[in-house]
């Protein structure tokens, strides 16, 4: 009886310890669902959302058009799904490139000695020192805009924060006795980097990547909103938000609300997954 009493009192203490994992798995499930659903919805929509229909201009949300239609009569739901698909690919690809740049920079700097390390540190500080958006606009402007320019600009500007974290980690790992032993067994830095260092960087890389995706998506939308990103005719959240500004005062609230809310939900899901992974990988919070 005493044991049963103790167990009942302990249960509420044990259950909250699963919170991090449950929340992270729920966010990951929603994220995965959106990643699968959005491109499928965009594909199923066909030409809807792209082809204008001047007989159904600025229709408020109803059963035929869940998110309403825009000034050209295009279905806003189909257009939002297509825009989020573009954002998703740009965000995922740019973040993957950024992680790759950060890892290569850090491993090369660790292998090449003090001068290269100083150079990489300078590049990190210089890139972080400049406002992201200014650098993004400059690169996009120089490359003439479009999905390739936006992806490249995002990849070239989002690596430094992750590189700074990875550099600190590599500096610490490099001093480990087993790395020194490996060096004294005649192993090359490339072999040490692949065998010993990279596996230890995987958690940071994964968390960095997942947290970078929403950041990159928001920057893509900002760039497009400002007119430096994707083409003004293409379905993109930034273009839709920019277009909606002209109609907000006329009471056409659905033009900005639904794409904005979808973007927010999408970004928050990725952010929750990233933060959950960070808490799970961190030994101090892994059990909470």
């Amino acid at each position, binding site marked *: 009886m005493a044991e049963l009493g103790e167990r009942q009192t302990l249960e509420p203490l044990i259950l909250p310890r699963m919170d991090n994992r449950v929340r992270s798995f729920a966010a990951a499930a929603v994220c995965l669902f959106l990643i699968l659903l959005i491109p499928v919805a965009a594909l199923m929509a066909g030409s809807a959302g792209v082809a204008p229909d001047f007989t159904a201009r600025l229709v408020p949300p109803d059963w035929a058009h869940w998110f309403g239609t825009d000034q050209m009569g295009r279905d806003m739901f189909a257009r939002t799904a297509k825009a989020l698909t573009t954002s998703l690919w740009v965000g995922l690809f740019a973040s993957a490139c950024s992680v790759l740049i950060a890892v290569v920079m850090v491993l090369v700097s660790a292998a090449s000695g003090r001068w290269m390390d100083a150079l990489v540190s300078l590049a990190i500080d210089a890139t972080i020192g400049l406002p992201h958006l200014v650098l993004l606009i400059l690169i996009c402007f120089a490359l003439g805009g479009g999905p390739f320019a936006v992806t490249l600009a995002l990849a070239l500007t989002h690596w430094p924060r992750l590189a700074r974290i990875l550099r600190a980690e590599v500096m610490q790992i490099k001093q480990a006795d087993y790395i020194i032993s490996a060096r004294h*067994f005649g192993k090359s830095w490339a072999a040490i980097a692949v*065998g*010993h260092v990279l596996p230890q960087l995987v958690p940071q890389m994964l968390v960095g990547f997942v947290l970078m995706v929403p950041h990159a998506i928001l920057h893509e939308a900002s760039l497009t909103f400002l007119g430096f990103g994707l083409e003004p005719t293409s379905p993109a959240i930034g273009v839709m938000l920019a277009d909606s500004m002209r109609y907000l005062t006329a009471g056409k609230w659905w033009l900005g609300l639904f794409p904005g809310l979808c973007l927010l939900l999408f970004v928050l899901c990725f952010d929750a997954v990233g933060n959950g992974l960070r808490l799970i990988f961190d030994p101090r919070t892994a059990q909470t």
Partner: protein
Amino acid sequence: MLEARDVCFSYGVAGRVLDHVSLAVRPGEVVGLTGRSGVGKSTLGRILSGHYRPLSGRVIIDGEPHARGFNPVQYLSQSPAFSVDPRWTVGRVISEAWRPDEAMLRAFGVSEAWYDRYPHEISGGELQRVAVLRALAPGTRYLVADEISAPLDPLTQAQIWMALLAHAQKNGLGMLVISHDRPLLRRIAGRILDL
């Protein structure tokens, strides 16, 4: 011969840990090194093994300085857990240096059954035996053993030292044994240096 000639060393701006220290270990010789805590025994061991670069003075191995590639002077520390990658299996840890034959495995009491286990899945004594075996690759000519048997039980200590001394005698391996345990040094070392 493994030689330290007029070696000086300091950590940062603090006072010198080693001030013009010289010693030599001949092939096949077992030299004991002792001294009070903090006198620089481990630092000297690490300098001889090429882990640290001396402030001044030189380390000469059979007439040549430390070179890139396999280091003929291997260093063994008191805590083997730090000298093996915790994410690697025991088999992978050993094969990073070489592949010992059945006789070597038996001599050092290392079981092939451990090969699939991770370092935290075997005991401290077993891991120390793995670390010793790994350091005895064919290219090793000198071994710096820094308090390697201090945390082990007497039986494991005896097993490791018997196997090591037999290997050293057979292969002409020079050994610098760093320890606070003078009776141990008197038993295994040809001469004892006090730092």
